[in-house]
């Protein structure tokens, strides 16, 4: 076992009551949060693929962002060195995570903040609820945050009678539409402006009935609506893009300035940060603040970068709580082949280049983390069998790996997780799956030249199917149907290659 997983195990041991050294760290619990979908990916995708509006919006948006990203990345002669630096910083941090977390905790406390440790979504939600209740309020404002969506914080607060208002424009659209985000960075990418206007008129009590669907008018309506809330809110909740161990500084990177309003105006700020968001030193931001905006929005520099360290008397929130969230991350760290998924800085470049995501959209993945990164992160956070279809939601084209700013080898981890699934399935079931049996049979046939030669020749039987057009059309049999529904199949040749070779060149077949 490697250095990092040993450390992480000892960390979780210290925090849990179990005495077993061998126990693997827990994955994210069921029944809370938004990491598991209701349907398997192929089923959910069939539904979303039929959504014309979604296909059009996504096609347009991803093509635009892809081109912008490619342009600004090409401007930097040292882009590949930057990627490598980003990767190494993350790998180093993950290998020393317990130490850096302890350092961060001390630094935050030294600057007047309070640090909480949450093993999972339930613990994190409970901590927030207690903190908000102690303030005696029933409304909080929120900065766009993936971690709070992951743990289902809004739903948990709602159950306790606390309203959580999303202040990021797109998140607000999603929230008012009683919808779910479909992209890490552009959560309302599946909505068009007519839909947004309708949502605002229906759900925003203070919207002007004469509101048009002009983007400027829509943004103006949201702005007015949100300003009132910023001025009245006592408690704000945020996530964090970075936590700096050396100084105890937290950072949020956003484009609208609404996040900064939340981070500066209310009296109390509660930040929920996944434990993997750490960087060791202030200087490390030099790398990430170049990588992140160019990869995510195709911007050279990020518009609003807010940084805060503990509490500053007379300036900004006077009470600051940092909740460090595990929720399955230590379990990911324990897998040497899968742990690089934790290096993700949530830029969403992989979503934007993914041919699968571009067509199915984010909802098909059933998790707040969609696209290629979601396909390797969600199954690891929940345990592979709770999201077993996600590692297969990829053609392994490799476009994601090429654009990842921290060089996460997503295709390789997808393949690793596929193996993890089949091995887990085999261990939990007495009867092998039909697929496992078929592939075992294939391996048996392919392990012997004679068996292989006969199997190839028997393919000639398929010639009868294709006799009319010299191609095989629809065949309503399981598996074959999956292919022939949309594509013809090649009519097997009269002679396999090896038989031709033997006939031409002599020798064994």
């Amino acid at each position, binding site marked *: 076992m490697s250095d990092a997983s040993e450390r992480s195990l000892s960390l979780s041991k210290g925090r849990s009551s179990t005495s077993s050294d061998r126990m693997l760290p827990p994955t994210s619990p069921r029944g809370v949060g938004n990491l598991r979908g209701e349907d398997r990916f*192929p089923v959910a*995708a*069939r539904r979303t*693929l039929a959504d014309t509006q979604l*296909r059009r919006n996504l096609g347009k948006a991803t093509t635009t962002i892809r081109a912008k990203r490619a342009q600004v990345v090409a401007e930097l002669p040292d882009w590949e060195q930057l990627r490598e630096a980003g990767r190494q910083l993350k790998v180093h941090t993950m290998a020393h995570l317990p130490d850096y977390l302890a350092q961060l905790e001390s630094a935050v406390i030294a600057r007047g903040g309070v640090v909480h440790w949450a093993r999972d979504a339930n613990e994190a939600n409970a901590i927030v609820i207690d903190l908000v209740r102690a303030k005696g309020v029933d409304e909080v404002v929120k900065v766009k945050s993936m971690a709070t969506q992951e743990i289902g914080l809004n739903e948990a607060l709602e159950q306790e009678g606390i309203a959580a208002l999303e202040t990021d424009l797109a998140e607000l659209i999603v929230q008012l539409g009683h919808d779910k985000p479909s992209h890490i960075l552009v959560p309302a990418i599946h909505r068009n402006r007519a839909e947004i206007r309708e949502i605002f008129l229906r759900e925003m009590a203070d919207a002007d009935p004469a509101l048009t669907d002009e983007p400027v008018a829509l943004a103006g309506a949201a702005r007015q609506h949100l300003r009132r809330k910023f001025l009245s809110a006592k408690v704000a909740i945020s996530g964090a893009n970075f936590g700096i161990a050396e100084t105890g500084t937290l950072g949020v990177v956003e484009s609208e300035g609404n996040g900064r309003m939340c981070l500066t105006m209310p009296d109390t700020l509660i930040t929920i940060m996944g434990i993997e968001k750490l960087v060791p030193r202030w200087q490390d931001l030099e790398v990430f603040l170049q990588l992140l905006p160019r990869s995510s929005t195709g911007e050279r520099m990020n518009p609003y970068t807010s940084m805060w360290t503990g509490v500053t008397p007379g300036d900004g929130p006077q009470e600051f709580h940092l909740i460090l969230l595990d929720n399955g991350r230590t379990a990911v760290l324990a897998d040497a082949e899968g742990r690089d998924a934790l290096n993700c800085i949530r830029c969403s470049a992989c979503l934007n280049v993914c*041919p*699968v995501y571009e*067509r*199915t959209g984010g909802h098909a993945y059933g998790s707040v983390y969609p696209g290629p990164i979601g396909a390797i992160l969600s199954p690891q956070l929940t345990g592979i069998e709770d999201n077993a279809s996600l590692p*297969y*939601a*990829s*053609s*392994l*084209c*490799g*476009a994601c790996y*090429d654009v990842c700013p921290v060089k996460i080898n997503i295709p390789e981890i997808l*393949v690793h997780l*596929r*193996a*993890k699934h*089949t091995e887990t399935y085999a261990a939990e079931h007495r009867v092998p799956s039909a697929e*496992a049996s078929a*592939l*075992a049979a*294939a*391996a048996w046939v*392919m*392990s012997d*030249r004679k068996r*292989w030669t006969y199997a*190839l020749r028997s*393919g000639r039987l398929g010639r009868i199917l294709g006799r009319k*057009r*010299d*191609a*095989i059309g629809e065949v309503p049999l399981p*598996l074959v149907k*999956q*292919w022939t*529904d*949309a*594509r*013809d*199949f*090649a*009519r*097997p*040749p009269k*002679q*396999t*290659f*090896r038989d*031709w*070779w*033997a006939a031409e060149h002599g*020798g*064994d*077949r």
Partner: protein
Amino acid sequence: MRTALFITCLADALFPEVGKATVQLLERLGEEVEFPAEQTCCGQMHVNTGYQKQALPLVERFAEVFSPYDAIVAPSGSCVGSVRHQHVVIAERFGSPTLVQQVKAVAANTYELSEYLVDVLGVTDVGAYFPHRVTYHPTCHSMRMLRVGDKPIKLLQAVEALELVELPAADQCCGFGGTFAIKNADTSTAMLADKMRNVLDTGAEMCTAGDSSCLMHIGGGLSRLRAGAKTVHLAQILAATREQPMVLGRGERQAEVHAGPEAVL
């Protein structure tokens, strides 16, 4: 130098024309090619579907069969990608240290066809003649795993009478992805629809690539639509000459799937 042809299981079973074309091309260029009959499959399907351990005998077999050769050439970017990148992973996880060494040595000598022609033989003009309008689809594994770059394009540009037209959004996956095409048939088909639209927009008669698997997928879709355009392997284009041109199909029985246009030489 001993050169072996790794035909790939797919071409052996379904697309022998691709293998024949590869052999004819290499022999025309003065190469002596051997076909080790013990070869079967690289095991990529097993690895990519999640059955890594079951791939071990296939990885061992590949290393054993091809170890005696100085160069191994295959008409597939994807299978070569598997040999070069996946075999070592499987060997390290399930095999012996000896196998790891063997696998690494064989991988270093394994080439995709365009790499072999351009990098090993040092030719771009192979003396081919192909009087057709053609578009080229860079398959994902040849582009991103092997980084063949513009080698296939250079080879195509040197073909006499060939009109090469650029494929829009060429770098997008066609949607094949091995068992992905079956497990996620709807998504795969949606990707295929866009690829076919782009192919047809070029007005090309034929779409070519270095992988029979992707061509089987694109060609199967075009055939279903009776779109007229076909798919043909790069090796088949490069094998055709003025003296022995490629004849598409035989009589009225014209194969529309990449089975394919049979090279009657």
